[in-house]
Each structure stands twice: as C-alpha cells, then as structure tokens.
C-alpha cells in the first residue's frame, strides 16, 4: 500500500463497464474485499496485494496486465 497516489494504474472502471456495468459491490463480492477497497483501487489510492490483483483479473476473465499497469516514473 503506498502513500497517496500509487504508481500502479488500473482499468477496473472500464472493465466493469464492459462487464455489463458491474457494480462495485458486485465486484467486491466476487473478489472478496469491501466495496471501499474497490473504490480506493479505482481511484488509484490503493495498490492491492498480488493475490487480490489476480482475483480482480479473474473476476473479469482477463490477464493481470490488462487490469493493472505499472507506471515507471523514469520512462
């Protein structure tokens, strides 16, 4: 968990939209976290553990790197 904005971007909002406007609560239920954690992830305020990241990807049926992208500040 980082301080403030993290260096990890994600496409959770878009993926939820493409999954028939899946609600944050529904995704939270699938992943096994609270809705607040999904909100924090979408807003880039929280980087999940690798395990939760995989569970999010699995919930959408896509590879991990399609959900999370590491933003390298040096690039």
């Amino acid at each position, binding site marked *: *968990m*980082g*301080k403030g*904005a993290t260096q990890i971007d994600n496409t959770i909002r878009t993926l939820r939209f493409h999954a028939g406007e899946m609600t944050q609560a529904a995704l939270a239920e699938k992943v*096994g976290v*609270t809705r*607040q*954690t999904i909100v924090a992830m979408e807003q880039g*305020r929280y980087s999940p553990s690798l395990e939760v990241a995989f569970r999010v990807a699995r919930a959408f049926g896509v590879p991990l790197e399609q959900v999370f992208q590491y933003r390298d500040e040096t690039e």
Partner: protein
Amino acid sequence: MTYKQLNASVMILSGAGIAAWVVWQAMSDPAQDLENVAFRLLYAIGLNIIINIVLMILATIVVSVARREDLKDERADERDRSIADKSLRNGYFAVSIGGLAVIVALAFGQGPIFAAYLLFGVLLLGGLVDPVSRLVYYRVG
C-alpha cells in the same frame, strides 16, 4: 461513511470529551493525593468505555435511519488490516514517546500526581492517534 470509519469517529469524539472532562475536573477541583487522582482516572477510563459503546449504538441507529439501510460492519479485508496495523503502530509510537515524557517529568522533579495525569494523557493520546490515523489512511489511501 463505513462502520469502521464511524467507529473511529466515535472513538475520537468520546476520547476528546473525556480528556476535556478530566482537565476541567483537575482545574476546578484539584485532587490532594495520588490515590484520589488514580480513582478519578480509573473512573474516567470506565466512563470512556461506556460512552464509546453508547455513542456507537446511537450513531449506528442514526446513520441507519438516515440512509434507510442497516449500517453493518463488513468483514475486514487486506486494506482494513493494513490500515489497522499502521494506525496501531502510530498509536504505539505516540504512547512510547509519551511514556518517555512521563519518566523525564519524574526525573526532573515533577510530582507523582502530575505524572499520573500525564500518563493518563499519554494513554488517551495513543487512543486518539489510532482512530485519527485510521480516518486519514481511509481517506488518502
């Protein structure tokens, strides 16, 4: 606001209220001996626990009525646990520094009554740093 955030807010409110009450009592009716002070502080700790429970019940009812849905405590996930750990660490840090301040105060000639009040203040501070940290971490990530 989630149940956990409400709980932290209630802890801050009751802790601050008890601190104000103890300071007011110490100013208006100073205790003469250490035993008396210790009983007052024990009373304040007990009162703090009771006020916390009552306030939490009332706040849960008020928020539930306002939202028209039950405010329930969700099962803690990894973010909740991480925030709880970091907040507890901050509280522990505050208590450690405060504990040192009590010893320093005694070493520099302060009396046991002052030290008892200071110790109580330190414990209360630790109890406030924890929920304040939780609220901050929930907000900023």
